[in-house]
C-alpha cells in the first residue's frame, strides 16, 4: 500500500474506527490513543508488504477488516490493563507516535437519548455491541463483519438479530 492509498484508506475509515472505539471505551483521549495505534499498526503492516518480516506476517487482503481487528484487540488489551496502569502518551511515543505539538480540544456532545444509548451499548456484552456498532453505525456489511470476526455471514446475521433484541431490552429496562 502506497502512502497515497493509505491516506485515502485513513480518510475513509478514521471516523468509523474512532467511533467504534469511542463507543466502547467512553473516553475521547483513550479513543484517540487506541485509534492512533490501530492505524499505525495497519500502516506498518501495509507499507512493509514484500519485505521479509515476522513469521506470521502476511499481506493485508482486507485493510478495513484488519484495522477493525486491531482496534478490537486494542480495546480488549485496554480493559485487561485498565486495573494495572493507564495507557500513557510516553508509551505511545515509544511505539512511534510523537506527542502532538498543540493540544486538540476534542469534545463530543450527545443528546440525552444518545447518551443513554451509548451507555446501554457499554452495558451489554462486547460481542453484541461490536456487531451493532459495525453494522448499524459504521455501515459495515455482514460480509465485512464476518471477515473481521472470522465467522460466516449467517452467524453474523444471527448475532446481529440477537444483539439488537438484547439492546432493546436494555434500553426498555432503563426507560
Amino acid at each position: 500500500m502506497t502512502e497515497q492509498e493509505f491516506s485515502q484508506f485513513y480518510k475513509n475509515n478514521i471516523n468509523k474506527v474512532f467511533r467504534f472505539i469511542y463507543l466502547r471505551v467512553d473516553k475521547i483521549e483513550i479513543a484517540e490513543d487506541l485509534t492512533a495505534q490501530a492505524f499505525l499498526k495497519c500502516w506498518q503492516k501495509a507499507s512493509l508488504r514484500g519485505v521479509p518480516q515476522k513469521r506470521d506476517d502476511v499481506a493485508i487482503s482486507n485493510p478495513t477488516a484488519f484495522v477493525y481487528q486491531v482496534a478490537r484487540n486494542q480495546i480488549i488489551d485496554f480493559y485487561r490493563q485498565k486495573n494495572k496502569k493507564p495507557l500513557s502518551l510516553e508509551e505511545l511515543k515509544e511505539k512511534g507516535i510523537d506527542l502532538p505539538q498543540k493540544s486538540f480540544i476534542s469534545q463530543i456532545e450527545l443528546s440525552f437519548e444518545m447518551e443513554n444509548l451509548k451507555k446501554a451499548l457499554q452495558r451489554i456484552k462486547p460481542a453484541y455491541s461490536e456487531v451493532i456498532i459495525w453494522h448499524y453505525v459504521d455501515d459495515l456489511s455482514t460480509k465485512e463483519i464476518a471477515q473481521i470476526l472470522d465467522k460466516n455471514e449467517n452467524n453474523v446475521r444471527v448475532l446481529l438479530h440477537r444483539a439488537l433484541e438484547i439492546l432493546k431490552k436494555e434500553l426498555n429496562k432503563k426507560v
Partner: protein
Amino acid sequence: MTEKELLEQLNELKSIKPNQNWASWLLSNILSQSSSVIASEAKQSQKPKIHLVSFSFLHHYQKALVSAALVVLFISTFALAQTSLPGNLLYPVKTLTQNAKIALAPKDYKPVVRMQITKARLEDMAKITDQEQVIALMSQNIQKDLEAIPQELKNIQKKQKTLDISKQVQTEAKDLNNMIARTQLQSQDKEALEKTTQDTQAQVLALIIDTTEEINQCPGFLQDKLANLQKYFTENIQIVAQWSPDEITQIRTFLADISNDIKAGNCLEAMEKIESINQILQIHSLDIKVETSTPTP
C-alpha cells in the same frame, strides 16, 4: 421502544467524529514517523537471527546449584590436598585434616593415631629436600607430636588398655626410627628427630614396664589398695553417710567384689572397680585420693 426507533437512534450515533485537526495530525504523524521505525525494523528483520540456548531455567535452581558447587569445591579441595606435599598451597589443608583426625580420635587411641600421622608427615617431609625452612618447621612439629605421646598414654585410665596401646605405639615408633634412618635429611635434622623418637620410645618402654609390673604384682598391690579404701570409708563414715543410698550400696558392692576378685586372682577386674570407686570419690569433690589421704600401711 420499537426496532425502528432504535435503528434511528443508532443512525444518529454516526454524528460522533474525532477532532478533524487531530485526525489530520495523526495521519501526517503516522506517515512521517513510522517510516524511520519501519526502516529499522526492516533492517533488523533481514539479519539472520540466532537463537541461543536458553539457560534461564538455571535461575530457578540458583541456590541449590550454588550450594552444590560449594560442596563439590570443598570436597575436591580436600581430595586434592591429600596428595599435596609440604610447600604446596593445599598442604595446610592436609595438615588441618590430620589435626582434626587426632582431635576426633577416641581418647584411648589418640597416641596411636598421633604416631601414624607423625609417620605420614615424616614421609611427606622426606620427599622434599630443597626447602630448608619448611623442613625445619615440620621437624619441630613432628618432635612436638612425639613428645606429647607418653603423656597421652599415661592419661589412659585402664591399665590393660595402657599396656596394649603402649605396645602398639612402641611398634610404630620402631618403624618411625627406621624411616628416619632411611631419609635423606640433613644430619642435624635427622639427629634431632632420632633423639626425640628414642626419648619417646624410652618413656613408652618405661610405661610398659611399670604397667606390666602393676598388673603382674596384682594381688599384693591390690590388697594394699583395698585396705586403704576400707580404711578411708571407716574413717570418713560421716561424710559418706551424706551420699545417696544407691551410691553407698554401690561402694559396698564394689568393695566386696574387689575382695572376691583378689581372692579369685581376677586382678584386672579388681583394678577397674577400684578406679570406679575413685571416680565416685572425684564426683563428690574429694580431690584427695585414698592413696594419698590415708597412710600407706
